[in-house]
């Protein structure tokens, strides 16, 4: 039987959740025995080469590229998991929600004391910034949520093992935290 396939992505995130995946320490060797990685920054595979079983999404959606990427993951992954506060509720990038985009861009590119060319970047190559930052489950269906900033390595590990082995997930109180 072939191994289950895992893909991961960091959308509007800081890669902290990916660092937390690596924080499972030597269990990463066991993980490699259990699963095969496809599209992910961990193995640097840029495009999906096969249908995946589990997709781990870090970060919410702040621009059009995030939305496209998230929809691509939904299409290519049987189970999609929001990993971390940004994926679940927008997180730090969502602190701009409630402030009009125009005001944000002007503050960053025109009024900021350290800019001198005073241009708001606008090029076809650049993804369009969204009106606000969206949690992933407001864009596509998300099957499971792993909260934390970042989610504890033990939470990610236990959730993955439970999914891969079909065993009941028993989480100690200490591993589910929002910070």
């Amino acid at each position, binding site marked *: 039987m072939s191994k289950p396939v895992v893909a991961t992505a960091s959308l509007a995130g800081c890669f902290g959740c990916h660092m937390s995946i690596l924080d499972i320490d030597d269990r990463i060797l066991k993980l490699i025995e259990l699963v095969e990685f496809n599209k992910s920054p961990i193995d640097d595979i840029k495009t999906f080469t096969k249908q995946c079983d589990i997709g781990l999404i870090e970060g919410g959606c702040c621009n059009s590229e995030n939305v496209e990427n998230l929809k691509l993951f939904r299409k290519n992954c049987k189970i999609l998991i929001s990993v971390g*506060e940004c994926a679940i509720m927008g*997180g*730090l990038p969502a602190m701009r*929600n*409630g*402030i009009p985009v125009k005001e944000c861009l002007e503050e960053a590119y025109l009024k900021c004391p350290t800019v001198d060319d005073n241009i708001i970047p606008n090029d076809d190559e650049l993804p369009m910034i969204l009106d606000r930052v969206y949690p992933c489950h*407001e864009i596509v269906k998300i099957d499971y*949520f792993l909260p934390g900033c970042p989610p504890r390595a033990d939470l990610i590990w236990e959730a993955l093992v439970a999914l891969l082995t079909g065993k009941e997930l028993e989480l100690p*109180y200490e591993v589910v935290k*929002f910070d």
Partner: protein
Amino acid sequence: MSTINFTIDGKACKAKPGQTIVEAAKDNGIYIPTLCHFEGLKPAGTCRICTVKVGGRNMAACTTPVTEGMVVENKTADLEDYRKAIIEMLFVEGNHMCPTCEKSGNCELQALGYRYMMMAPRFPFLFPRRTLDASLPKIVIERNRCVQCLRCVRGITTADGKRIFGVVNRGGHVEITVDKDLAASMTDEMAQKAMDLCPVGAILKKEVGFAIPIGKRKFDSKPIGSEIEKA
């Protein structure tokens, strides 16, 4: 003094006359989750997390006195889900960014989220635009995190009994406000009391933050209510 006999989820309990359901439950080793309630303050019944069922009706356990023969339903699947829904509503209707909050780990709303295993709220986030007041000498008022429990309004007064905090507007526009002159005269002790009274991170004492390391904070290893529950 006479004793009142009543039951919670079928368990025989005893209460003193005048006790509310929340207080009596605590004395009997039963935890009913609360948020706006604070021992020593007049109950307000604003958050409704303590909702229990009495005689088929939903009641706020923090404002309802126990009566003889009362049959209280507390830990039923329906009530627990109502409570979880209220917690989720509070999370989506404010801007609760736990990772950036000084109160994280000591926050009662967050602790209730943990207790009820809120992995993600079922409701869409509203991302309201709220204001922050950092102009006072001793405290910061961070309205993004306010849950309008009115604990500060009820519990923080000057030595001569004047209220420092107040509430303005109605419905979704309700906002905690402060008497700037009275707040300017707050001592360090009063500022600490106000911060400790606030269940969330809406009132913060200035010039101190993230003082307790992760792992040693109030709700890092023990769920809220576990100190009340008897095995």
